[in-house]
């Protein structure tokens, strides 16, 4: 089910500006991989190039090779929408569709992807909301607006929406940075459960969070502003946080910069 992602020399540009340079790493299936590093080092850019969201911006392009179970994500004959259905994404700020109810939000991907059968949608909605630990809180008001939920609930709604289309990889870009500590814990618990089924890549600014939820951690950094971000060290989370092999990683972990 869950898939292995391999990046070889991934370089991404915004117009003429090179944001990341030569990122190579292998992301294991059914695990949580954390991307950490100072702001502007290209974590989001790398994450967005994995499900081809980077190219949505005008002038943005990606070079290098990205494969999912050895299928090239950027091959000419690849359908972008299929890539994005396989590799779901949760954003920094919860972004439920404001015109839609909770139910419609969860099944949006399926319905707009062509699924019509009510029974299928009902089942998928319940399954996704249960998986996102939100079912108990909202099952009595599925036809109320999704935007009426609290921030933490909205973010879990967005996670439910992402997993309702049954992706194999879920990318999360600082999913807790707009949330309070309680909601953050709820999402972290959820991530630990989801990794039994999905490959998860999470960008986080919070090092405790990376230490708590992830199996492996990748540290990104830049030399100075304007330079492209590079992968400095990538290893088991325990190793990165206790015994990093690169001096820069250690400086960052111990709070000496970034």
């Amino acid at each position, binding site marked *: 089910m869950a898939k292995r992602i391999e990046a070889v020399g991934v370089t991404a540009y915004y117009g003429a500006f090179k944001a990341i340079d030569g990122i190579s790493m292998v992301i294991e299936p059914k695990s949580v991989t954390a991307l950490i590093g100072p702001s502007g080092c290209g974590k989001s850019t790398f994450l967005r190039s994995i*499900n081809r*969201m980077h190219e*949505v911006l*005008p002038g943005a392009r990606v070079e290098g090779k990205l494969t999912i179970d050895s299928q090239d994500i950027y091959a000419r004959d690849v359908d972008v*929408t*299929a*890539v*994005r*259905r*396989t590799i*779901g*994404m949760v*954003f920094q*700020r919860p*972004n*439920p*569709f*404001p*015109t*839609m*109810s909770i139910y419609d939000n969860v099944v*949006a*991907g399926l319905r*707009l*992807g062509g699924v019509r059968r009510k029974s299928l949608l009902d089942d998928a909605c319940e399954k996704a909301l249960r998986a996102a630990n939100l079912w108990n809180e909202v099952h009595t008001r599925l*036809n*109320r*607006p999704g935007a009426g939920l609290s921030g933490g609930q909205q973010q879990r709604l*967005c996670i439910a*929406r*992402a997993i309702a*289309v049954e992706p194999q990889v879920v990318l999360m870009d600082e999913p807790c940075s707009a949330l309070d500590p309680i909601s953050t814990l709820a999402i972290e618990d959820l991530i630990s459960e989801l990794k039994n089924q999905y490959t998860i890549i999470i960008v986080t600014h919070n090092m405790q969070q990376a230490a708590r939820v992830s199996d492996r951690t990748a540290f990104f950094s830049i030399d100075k502003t304007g330079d492209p971000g590079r992968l400095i060290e990538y290893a088991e989370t325990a190793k990165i946080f206790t015994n990093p092999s690169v001096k820069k990683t250690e400086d960052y972990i111990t709070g000496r910069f970034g």
Partner: protein
Amino acid sequence: MTSMTTIPTSSSAPLTNALRSRRLPVWALVAIGVAAAVLAVLLFKVAGLMDGGWVLTLVGAVLIFLIGLSVISSVVEGRRAARNRVATSLIYSAFVLALVPLVSVVITLLNKGRTRLDGTFFNNSMRNITAFDSGGGAYHAIVGTLEQAGIATLITVPLGVAGAIYIVEYGRGRLANTIRFFVDVMTGIPSIVAGLFILAFWVLIVSPHLSSTHQPFNSGFAAALALFVLMLPTVTRSTEEMLRLVPASLREGSFALGIAKWKTIMRIVIPTALPGIVTGIMLAVARAAGETAPVLLVAGGTPNRNFNPFEGNQESLSVYIYDQAAAATKYGPPRAWTAALTLVALVLLLTVVAKLLSRRTKLNQK
């Protein structure tokens, strides 16, 4: 920690005093207002200063109120509070002033339009009725306005919205900028020029090919085309602004679910922007329904019923108003006023219906 918790109790009295200040009670404001009114009446009406009329008295009362308020307030409440009071009063005065023309138009319309608000008006045309005859109605004009504005809207909305979608969602670089520029230029086209354009292009060049006699002819459809020229830039621009207000995060959220771009636009972006788009469309419709010059030019106007928009002269409410108001008899102007009232009511009705339809009905209920 201990010192922190003791501060509020030990110094609570001076602290609350520092945050409090004396405020003018409401009765004092009312008293100043009454005093200003009395003073103004005495000055301008009784003493007859500057041949005081009511308008002058009212303006004088407001000025006296402002001066009195600022003096008393700065004595009692201090200068900052006084300035706040004066600014607040000025804003309220400006608001009332802005309402005056609106209220006055509505009252005048209701007042003068009442005379001919009868069954005859809504069931008859002006066939065989001269300016010196009573009776007559605007049935033919109402139908004409509905047909012309309706056809114009049917053509404008899909093209205008599609154009806005192109500019915002697809257009990149030169072409999109050029189109935007021309839409901007078109916004400023005077309506008579739009009328002339349709006269030259449609009535004189195209319509002869459509008639068996090969003669050019007027039609309600030609008027609709002229209205379309006027409505298109308004609809495109307002839709464009509304689409730009839809956060990029919604589009990205949709793309990330593997939803194709056109579906994202149709099912996520447009519904989110819909209330604003409808408002823009209704503004354009309201303006088109009131246009006179182009209709006069290419539909010609007629006292008779003509329900076929594709052939022959057709009346519209605005042309009807123009004709009747120009008739210097005791029957013409009342008909014009009632037609004006009808036109305003029609536009209002359409706007309310459109607003109700575009509301997020399913989600607004409790």
